[in-house]
């Protein structure tokens, strides 16, 4: 009977499944680890992974996040079922509060000379109130910092606009929009379609691309919702949402909206639609953090390189000095932790110590010398055209090479090593210009620069930097206030920009009234933490 055969098949599948669970007997040391950053499962064997396994005798059983982190963390804490090691993004400290993490100070002191050496610069920042260190941030910058082709954020402008205007250097918001407006007048259509002057991203949590702008117009780097301002030698946390800069910015957007420069439907676009518009080549300008426009830039570089976006550090007016670039920082408030469930903490820390040392970092990020990279007479690493070809295939890098499985979510080194090589191949200093696209080079040459970051001032030191890594306690009054404040921003910003010009003042007044009472608690929390950081870091 057909039915019986089906049943037999089902039984067979069950048996096979059960058997395969049992077969995975272990000879090596195995650690379970939960990683909050999603990645497809480890393929089981990779070039890098096999070397690491052979040298350490450690096998990792990884669980990458699927679904939402809040639920996962809540369940892990409530049930007490923990892996040996974990990362949990901004929830890491909750595990510490629940007494589920073990302090690393002694372990590092006794068993991990490399961690001690390479995290030395950051060590004070990692100490919690009780003086213990509970996690290792994913990144350590042991020596100098390196640089990249693009800055973290900027007012991006279409290359066509710059070219036609004779490569001007844009400084102020007025200049920026004037360029766009003029170009739009001359070219109402691009590739047969309507030219879009300016788009601003306002899709759910990504709306910071619109609401964070006032702090940058005042010259600050990305701090988050509030800015610590140096007043009489002390960093005082200030809000910028009702500042003059905010008013001038929204008023400018309002003016441009009514002139038809700002895209009519900019506030109803989601991220996919935003990328769609940017990559069509007919958008002239947008503000954002670079990683949010990167996909569009990739497409433009491939299909329409004359329309790529060039970033500028735009400020409100000439009097403001710009320091918009990030002060090099590590995310001290989160990282990889060893839990109380780990039966062999010494083994775990030794493994991490092995991972973080320079030799291993070169292995996981650059590969095997002579096979995946070469060294020139100055001791600089580089890849041949053939090697580059391999590394341009993300599938190969992930599934065959395997490096990302040991530097994503695991402690890794950033910046420049002792020999002047960047730990990250893509940031190798002498290759930033050389590896640029012809279209990018044309712009850089016109401005006499070797990377777009050179438009920007070097960041000024801010010891606490940045404010946004401070975690507001979950469910606290400050947390609720924060959500409410974002609700107000969500509701009012589109209204301010889209209102008729003569109504702007009225809507602005309403907005100020609505948002002003929603900042006190947050400022209190941030101020406390900033003070603590200034004292202890």
């Amino acid at each position, binding site marked *: 009977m057909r039915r019986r055969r089906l049943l037999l098949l*089902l039984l067979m*599948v*069950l048996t096979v*499944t059960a058997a395969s*669970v049992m077969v995975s007997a272990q000879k090596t040391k195995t650690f379970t680890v939960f990683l909050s*950053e*999603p*990645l*497809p*499962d480890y*393929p089981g064997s990779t070039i890098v992974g096999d070397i690491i396994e052979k040298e350490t005798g450690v096998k990792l059983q990884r*669980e*990458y*996040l*699927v*679904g939402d982190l809040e*639920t*996962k963390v*809540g*369940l892990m804490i*409530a*049930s007490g*079922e923990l892996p040996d090691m974990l990362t949990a993004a901004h929830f890491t400290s909750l595990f510490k509060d629940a007494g589920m993490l073990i302090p690393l100070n002694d372990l590092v002191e006794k068993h991990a000379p490399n961690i001690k050496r390479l995290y030395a610069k950051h060590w004070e920042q990692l100490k919690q109130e009780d003086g213990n260190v509970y996690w290792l941030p994913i990144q350590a910058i042991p020596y100098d910092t390196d640089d*990249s*082709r693009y800055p973290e954020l900027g007012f991006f402008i279409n290359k066509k606009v710059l070219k036609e205007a004779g490569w001007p250097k844009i400084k102020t918001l007025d200049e920026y929009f004037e360029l766009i407006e003029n170009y739009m007048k001359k070219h109402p259509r691009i590739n047969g379609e309507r030219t879009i002057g300016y788009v601003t991203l306002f899709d759910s949590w990504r709306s910071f691309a619109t609401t964070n702008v006032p702090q940058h117009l005042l010259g600050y780097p990305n701090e988050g919702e509030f800015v610590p301002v140096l007043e009489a030698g002390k960093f005082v946390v200030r809000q910028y949402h009702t500042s003059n800069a905010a008013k001038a910015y929204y008023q400018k957007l309002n003016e441009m909206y009514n002139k038809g420069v700002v895209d009519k439907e900019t506030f109803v676009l989601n991220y*996919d*639609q935003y*990328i*769609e518009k940017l*990559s*069509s080549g007919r958008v002239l300008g947008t503000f954002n953090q*670079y*990683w949010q426009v*990167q*996909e569009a*830039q*990739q*497409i433009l*570089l*491939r*299909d329409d390189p004359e329309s790529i976006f060039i970033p500028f550090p735009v400020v409100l007016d000439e009097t403001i000095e710009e320091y918009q670039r990030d002060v090099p920082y590590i995310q001290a408030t989160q990282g990889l932790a060893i839990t109380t469930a780990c039966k062999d903490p010494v083994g775990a820390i030794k493994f991490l110590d092995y991972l973080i040392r320079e030799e291993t970092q070169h292995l996981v990020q650059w590969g095997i010398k002579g096979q995946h990279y070469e060294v020139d007479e100055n001791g600089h690493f580089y890849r041949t055209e053939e090697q*580059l*070809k391999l*590394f*341009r*295939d*993300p*599938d190969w*890098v*992930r599934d065959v090479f395997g490096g*990302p499985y040991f530097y*994503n979510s695991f402690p890794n080194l950033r910046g420049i090593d002792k020999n002047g090589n960047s730990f*990250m*191949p*893509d*940031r190798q200093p002498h290759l930033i210009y050389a*590896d*640029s*696209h012809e279209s*990018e080079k044309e712009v850089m040459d016109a401005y006499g620069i070797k990377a777009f970051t050179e438009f920007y001032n070097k960041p000024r030191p801010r010891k606490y930097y940045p404010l946004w890594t401070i975690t507001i306690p979950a469910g606290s009054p400050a947390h609720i206030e924060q959500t409410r404040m974002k609700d107000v921003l969500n509701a009012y910003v589109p209204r301010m920009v889209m209102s008729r010009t003569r109504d702007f003042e009225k809507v602005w007044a309403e907005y100020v009234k609505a948002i002003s009472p929603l900042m006190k608690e947050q400022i209190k929390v941030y101020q406390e933490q900033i003070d603590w950081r200034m004292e202890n870091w």
Partner: protein
Amino acid sequence: MKTRRIHRTKEDIILDFVVYTSLIFLVIITLYPFLNTLAVSFNDALDSSKGGIYLWPRKFTLYNYRSLLSRQQIFHASLISVLRTVLSTLFCTFSTAMVAYTLSRKEFVFRKLFSFIYVLTMYIDGGLIPNYFLIRNLGLTNNFWVYVLPGLVTAFNLIVIRTYINGLPESLIESARVDGAGEFTIFTRIVLPLCKPVLATIALFVAVANWNAWFDTFLYNSSNPQLSTLQYELMKVLQSANTMTGSLEQALAQAATGSMQTITPRAIRATMTVIVTVPIAVVYPFLQRYFVHGLTLGGLKE
């Protein structure tokens, strides 16, 4: 099947016109999203981000499928998905129908009480954490049966089948009883065959719900890769799409040479949709014949 030639009245003609035009309109607007998804799934991922893909791929590629289906777990996870779907569908449909039958018996003393107990469960829920503790204490975490057991009889399906049984002619059941048949025999021999349309419907509901489920894997079986399901594996790929390109700089270096093949969340979603929908579309006609058929075929045949 041949349609019967009856004399067509004016009413017939107008009605047919309305029926066919509205159905054709519906087919167009409901087929479009699927065709569009199909086109995106066969289109170069980055190119799809530019928009403007409608019914046909612009830059044809199989890369999206290769990228999703080449994951090592996919085959095993598909087996688990099929297994859970088949077992759940069989067990749920049969047991729900059985309970529904008892609750349709007017003389059953616990009819109201049991119905009440079930109905209430539709609107109350203890919450995530208590549910987790229960499943764990029952030893169902890291256990295949967590896919089948908790949802064995659900109130909604139960009520739907009960309503259907209530609509059956009571005389059939009575005459069987007079012939001396026991309750269980009446249920299996008389009621079940009569219930084919509604059972096919419920089986479809249960099967689709099981086939699409991934949250229970996430909650209860996430630390045992051997129990992973297809949907869960696909969710993994989807969630990791943003980190797939590695670093930003790396992606740019790829872009600079124009030789890159990468995958975006949009492309993955489209491909996922096709991968999980095609098996349903294949199995569907076998269930469909129970509730869609020609005019002359009645439910009470046999």
